[in-house]
């Protein structure tokens, strides 16, 4: 068994290396920023003396690699620097919003993952039937829709006309959990629609790909039922691709969340990022980008490790 753990540790090592390089990349991006950080921090009122003072205070006069190490050390302690826009610590701005974004993403994932796996398996089971064609065409259509289109259609139908659900994610008055689910229903269902389509199509493709294998024909020739052929013979071998599909789409949620948060005025990280990009508030952009990228890398890493562990050829070697 030790070789499999070696493999897993190697993957983990590579993942953290990637994370490190990504942080370097994001840090270096700031260095490309035209204009002086201290100048922007102080705005109009800056005199050369105050600029020099703030530079010293922020450590901007130090060489780049030292500043990177300081920045990274700060990040690891939860110190992301100070916002240019309102001069508050970045961590304060991020704090609650990170929770909100995670809540929304998990909410959508909790609906999307089981739904799409089920639809994908059913479509593969009844491939080329009317059901399959219908699900496929609908999925293709919803993949093609921009997120904001899906969001506004839902608002138009479910909030504007019937008034069934709130169109704005309103967090006032300390809502309880069920209340939260109700109030964030529309943004969650928007994300779900977008991601389910992708995931369902990829699940179906992963399974159908395997159905041409000789061992599937063998299972049918052993007199197994179609359901057993799919669940017992195809699914275990489709695990690795399906795990990757899920990871890929959960990662996609991260991107989707940005647009959806803006449409529904949802107080999450995505909206913060968009506002900060518009204000060119670099420390905040940096921090949020790093958080998104880290989530993305960790998701892919988890998928990679799980896929390795699900492969009998790797787990049980000769």
């Amino acid at each position: 068994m030790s070789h499999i753990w070696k493999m897993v540790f190697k993957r983990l090592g590579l993942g953290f290396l990637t994370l490190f390089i990504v942080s370097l990349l994001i840090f270096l991006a700031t260095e490309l920023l035209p204009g002086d950080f201290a100048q922007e921090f102080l705005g109009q009122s800056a005199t050369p003396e105050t600029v020099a003072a703030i530079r010293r205070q922020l450590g901007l006069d130090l060489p780049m690699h030292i500043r990177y190490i300081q920045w990274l050390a700060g990040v690891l302690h939860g110190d992301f620097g100070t916002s240019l826009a309102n001069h508050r610590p970045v961590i304060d701005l991020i704090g609650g919003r990170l929770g909100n974004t995670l809540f929304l993403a998990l909410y959508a994932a909790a609906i999307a993952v089981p739904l799409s796996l089920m639809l994908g398996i059913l479509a593969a089971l009844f491939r080329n039937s009317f059901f399959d064609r219908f699900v496929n065409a609908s999925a293709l259509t919803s993949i093609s829709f921009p997120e904001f289109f899906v969001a506004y259609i839902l608002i138009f139908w479910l909030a504007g006309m019937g008034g069934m659900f709130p169109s704005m994610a309103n967090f006032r008055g300390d809502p309880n959990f069920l209340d939260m689910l109700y109030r964030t229903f529309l943004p969650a269902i928007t994300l779900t629609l977008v991601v389910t389509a992708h995931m369902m199509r990829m699940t179906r493709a992963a399974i159908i790909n395997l159905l041409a294998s000789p061992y599937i024909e063998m299972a049918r020739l052993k007199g197994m039922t179609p359901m057993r052929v799919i669940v017992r013979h195809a699914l275990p071998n489709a695990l690795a691709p399906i795990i990757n599909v899920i990871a890929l789409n959960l990662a996609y949620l991260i991107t989707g969340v940005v647009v959806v948060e803006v449409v529904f005025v949802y107080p999450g990280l995505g909206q913060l990022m968009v506002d900060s990009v518009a204000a060119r508030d670099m420390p905040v952009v940096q921090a949020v980008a790093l958080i998104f990228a880290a989530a993305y890398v960790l998701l892919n890493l988890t998928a990679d490790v799980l896929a390795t562990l699900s492969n009998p050829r790797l787990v049980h070697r000769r």
Partner: protein
Amino acid sequence: MGPLIVLLWAVAVIAACLVAGWLFRTVAIVATPHTIKRELRTAPLTASFGMLVIVIYIFVAIFAPLIAPFPEREIVGPEYMPWDHIHLLGTDNLGRDMLSRLIFGARNTVGIAFVTTALAFLIGAILGLLAATVGGWLDQILSRVVDVLMAIPALIFSLLLLTIFGTSIPTLILVIAVIDSTRVFRLARSVALNIVVMDYIEAAKLRGEGLWRLITREILPNALAPLVAEFGLRFCFVFLAISALSFLGLGLQPPMADWGSMVKENATLISFGDITPLLPAGAIALLTVSVNFVVDWQLHRASGLKE
């Protein structure tokens, strides 16, 4: 509208689309030369409809100034005018003609997405084919760089880069093209890797063929089908990405007519039950659906031929 009426409408619209697709295919089969004709016969109605839409979009984009009743950027009336016989789709938040902006938007949004995709392909496909063919350290370096670039989610990465470089059209095109070229690179490389292990590539190498001929005559023709399909898919992604950025106010900048920002600018109308702001979003959706239908057909054909 009750759910039943919505359903009836949906069925009617889908039926109309399929009929339009059928008509288009029938006409196209008559009008095209023999080799294309045979391919067209295999097109399902969804793909025929997709082709029809693409042709219409191209036409509108090219002849926008001739078709549009009003100029792109001129204020021609009060704000938020309802639909009438002069301003068929009303006016927008500044009082510009909605229909005209929609038509010019086809040129701007689709045109820029197309240029960006083409650029992404130029970079990604050339490097991907090169990496697979040459192999060794070149492949290692390129693949690792792409791995790192792909470790950052595309939208987040483009937001980061746009903060740094600003939001002019050239930077927008360049940033999105570079980010998307990493995805093209991955595909081109993996397609080419399946080809370079073929005996005919070995035979060509042993014959002493140079790198250029190896790529252009031996590898590219065999990689073309998946690459063309990928072009369609990539176009959809780029198109949606640019629209999303514009919607967020960070893509194409006003007063240029652009579908993404048009949705954003007029979004308030939706809460009043007016669907006008959904039209540009619908225009985006319609084009991506169409391209996807056509790509789906082509992919299906390619996989069918393999068996």
